[in-house]
C-alpha cells in the first residue's frame, strides 16, 4: 500500500481548507467565546481572593475547559463529512488517509492556539499588578500546546467513529474528561494505583509542565496520546473501506 505516504504539500493544502472552515463555523466561535469568558471569569474571581501575582489557578483549570471545548470544536471534523458525503469526494482524490487526518489535526490545533492568544492578556495585566514569574507562565503555555494536541487528536478519533456529531462529542468528552479528572481519584486508591493514575492523568502531566519544569517524560506522554489517537483514527478510516 502506497497509501501510507504523507505528502506534506497536500497536508498543507488540506490544513488551510480546514483552518478556514473553522472561521465559517458558528459552533467554533461560540465555543471559543464561552471558553474565554468562563476561563477568564473563573480565573479572576479566584485571583483576587488569593491576591498572588501568578497564573497557577488559570492553568490548573485549563485542562477541564479544554476537555469540553476541544471535543466541541473537533466533533464535526469527520462526522460532518461522513453525513454530507464529502468524505467520499475528498478521499477519492489523490490524498492519502494520513494526509487527511494530519490536515484536520493541525487545523484543529492551530485554531485552538489562536483561541489561546487572547488569554495572553491575563499574564500581561498581572505583570502590571505585581511581580509575575514568567517561567511557569511559559511552561503553562507550552503545556497548553501539548494538551491541545492530545485532546484534538482524541476529538478527531471520536469524530471518525460516527457520522453523528453529538455522539462524537459525547465519546470524546467521555475520553478527555476522565483523562483529566482521574488525578482526583488517587486519594481513594492504594499508593500503587495512585502512581499509575498520576502517570495516566493528562491534568497531572500538564500541571508538571505548567510549574515550569519540562520533563521529557511528560512531553513524551502527550506525544504518545497524539500518536495513538491519530493512528487509531487511521485504522478506523481504513476499516470503513
Amino acid at each position, binding site marked *: *500500500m502506497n497509501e501510507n505516504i504523507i505528502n506534506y504539500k497536500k497536508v498543507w493544502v488540506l490544513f488551510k481548507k480546514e483552518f478556514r472552515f473553522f472561521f465559517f463555523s458558528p459552533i467554533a466561535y461560540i465555543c471559543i467565546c464561552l471558553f474565554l469568558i468562563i476561563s477568564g471569569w473563573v480565573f479572576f474571581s479566584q485571583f483576587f481572593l488569593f491576591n498572588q501575582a501568578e497564573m497557577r489557578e488559570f492553568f490548573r483549570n485549563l485542562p477541564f475547559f479544554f476537555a469540553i471545548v476541544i471535543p466541541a470544536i473537533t466533533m464535526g471534523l469527520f462526522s460532518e463529512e461522513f453525513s454530507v458525503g464529502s468524505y467520499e469526494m475528498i478521499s*477519492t482524490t489523490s490524498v492519502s488517509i494520513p494526509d487527511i487526518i494530519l490536515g484536520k489535526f493541525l487545523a484543529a490545533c492551530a485554531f485552538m492556539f489562536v483561541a489561546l492568544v487572547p488569554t495572553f492578556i491575563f499574564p500581561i495585566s498581572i505583570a502590571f499588578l505585581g511581580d509575575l514569574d514568567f517561567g511557569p507562565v511559559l511552561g503553562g503555555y507550552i503545556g497548553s500546546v501539548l494538551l491541545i494536541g492530545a485532546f484534538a487528536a482524541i476529538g478527531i478519533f471520536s469524530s471518525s467513529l460516527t457520522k453523528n456529531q453529538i455522539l462524537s462529542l459525547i465519546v470524546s468528552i467521555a475520553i478527555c474528561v476522565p483523562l483529566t479528572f482521574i488525578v482526583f481519584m488517587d486519594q481513594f486508591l492504594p499508593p500503587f494505583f495512585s502512581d499509575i493514575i498520576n502517570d495516566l492523568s493528562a491534568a497531572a502531566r500538564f500541571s508538571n509542565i505548567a510549574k515550569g519544569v519540562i520533563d521529557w517524560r511528560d512531553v513524551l506522554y502527550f506525544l504518545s496520546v497524539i500518536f495513538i489517537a491519530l493512528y487509531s483514527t487511521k485504522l478506523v478510516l481504513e476499516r470503513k473501506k
Partner: protein
Amino acid sequence: MISVRGLKKFYGEVKAVNGVEFDIQKGEIVGLLGPNGAGKTTTLRMLTGYLTPTEGDVTIDNLSVIDNLSDIKKVIGYLPESAPLYGDMAVYDYLEFIARVQEVGESDIENRIHYVSDKCSLNQVINKKISELSKGYKQRVGLAHAIIHDPAILILDEPTSGLDPNQIIEIRELIKELGKEKTVILSTHILSEVEATCSRVIIINKGCIVKDASTDNLMADAGAANAVYLQIKTGEPKKAVGDFLKFKGVNKVDVSEGYAGLKDVFVFSDSGNDIREEIYKKIKESDWSLIEMRKEKQTLENIFQELTKEA
C-alpha cells in the same frame, strides 16, 4: 483498460456485489444500469478504491486498485451520487483546492480552472458559494471536480439524478462531450439515459451482471420482437376484430376496449417483418376507421423489467 475480475463485496450477510466481471476498453461510455439497491454504487466505489472488495480485484492499465491506489487515483475522476461538495467554499476556491490536492502543476492551475469552468459552463457562478447553487450547477461543479486533473477515466454515480429535464439534457450532452476523449462509466436507473449517452450497457441486478451488450445490439434485440399498435373505430365485437386481422403472417392479435368506443389492438407478426402495409390493406377492405397505427418496439424498459424482475 479497466478489468474487473470476480468482484465481491459483502456487508455481513448482505451480498451487495456478488461476482461482477467485465472489461472496459479505452474510449467506451459504459452505462451501469440496475434497479435501486442492485449494487451499482458499491461497484463504482470499488473501482475508485473508496471501498476495498471482499474478494476479487479491479485493475486499471494492469495496476491493481488495491495495491496501487495512489497511482490509480491520479487517472480516475469520480463524481459520487448527488455531488457532496464543500458548501461553504466558492466555486473557484473549491476548484483551486481540488486542483492542488490532485497535483495539478502550480502554473497550470489557473488554466485548468478556466478550462473546466468553460467546459462545464460555470463561469456565471464561479464566485458564488457552492451551497447557494442550484442542483444542476452543483452537479456541474461535481463534474468539474472530476475532470480538473484531466483523468483518463471518469466514473459518475447517477450524474443526472434529481435534476430537472433541461438540466438532464445539458449534463448528458456534457458527458457525451467528455466521452469523446475519456473512458466514462456511469451508473443510472434511468433507461433513456443509457440510450442517450452510452455505447454499452451493463445491467446489474442483486449484485450480479444479467446483461452486458452494446446499446445498439440491445436496441436491435428489442426491435426484433415487434408488434404493431392500432386504434380502430368500429362497432364489431372484440373477437370479430381479432379474427379479421389474423391473416397470414400474423402470430397473435390482442384486442381491448379503449376509450370512446375505440378499440386498442396489438398485432404481433411471426417473423419480425414489417406488416403495417398488410394491416392497412386489410382494414381498407372493411368499413372501420383507422385512427392510429404505429410500430411498437419492445422497449429497453421491457428488457430491463424482464432481466431484473423477481425470480
